[in-house]
């Protein structure tokens, strides 16, 4: 079982308390009606599928209930870091581990 650090509870807890919530940092356009079909397709459906560090959202569903962001290495399944929603992307180089 994965162990995930909740940045709000500041505790490292079993994965069973958490729910995965897709790719992080997908930003809704400020002016939706100004978007072309291709841009909408990009926003709604096109997601990254990296081999390596992946920025993703998690929710501490059976706990504080908050969404937060995490960087997980999709090869080793290790969490490199977790950080609060709204915080900027952390610098991958500073995370060390298996990050490239």
């Amino acid at each position, binding site marked *: 079982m994965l162990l995930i650090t909740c940045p709000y509870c500041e505790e490292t807890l079993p994965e069973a308390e958490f729910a995965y919530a897709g790719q992080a940092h997908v930003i809704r356009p400020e002016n939706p009606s100004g978007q072309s079909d291709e841009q909408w397709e990009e926003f709604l459906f096109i997601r990254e599928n990296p081999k390596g560090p992946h920025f993703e959202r998690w929710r501490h569903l059976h706990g504080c*209930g908050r969404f937060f962001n995490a960087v997980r290495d999709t090869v080793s399944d290790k969490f490199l870091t977790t950080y609060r929603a709204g915080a900027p992307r952390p610098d991958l180089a500073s995370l060390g581990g298996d990050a490239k």
Partner: protein
Amino acid sequence: MNKPMSSEPEVLAESAAVRVRLAKPCARLSLRARGDLAPLEAALGLSLPGKIGERCTGGELEALRLGPDEWMLHLPEGTVEGVLSSCAGVYETLPHSLVDVSGREVTFQIDGARATELLTLGMARDPESIAVGEGRRTNFDGVTVTIWRDADSAYRMDVWHSFAPHVLHLLETGCRELAAEAV
């Protein structure tokens, strides 16, 4: 179903190892607020716990912080109206949500020498990580429950009504199993 409520907690499962009782009904309030909480704390008559999992009491009121802006308040039945009206007075200065959820949950009181072990049957996290006098919302056998640790081996568990029979079934089985091992 409609039998009268007794004043003593009803024993639901008991063995040599651990005992599970149904706590007397109490009033429950769900509070959501953010910003400077001072006016709300003055209205409630207690200082709200500042860290997730911490508890505070003020008079008959007991508060547990569940999330960054969320608290659960327990208080005796019949005192809800007063608390709601005094907090309504500070709504203009500090908008918040204070909702009476008394009818939503039941509380199991779990105590006995091996109470902590009983909890491990359904919990993914270590019950020992909840310090005495603290509480947490967590997952027990697939159900979201709130655990209050009152003493080294005395817990309270708030469970939503609809999940209570499911949770109690595991607790009953666990009571018997822990006692069988102890022989």
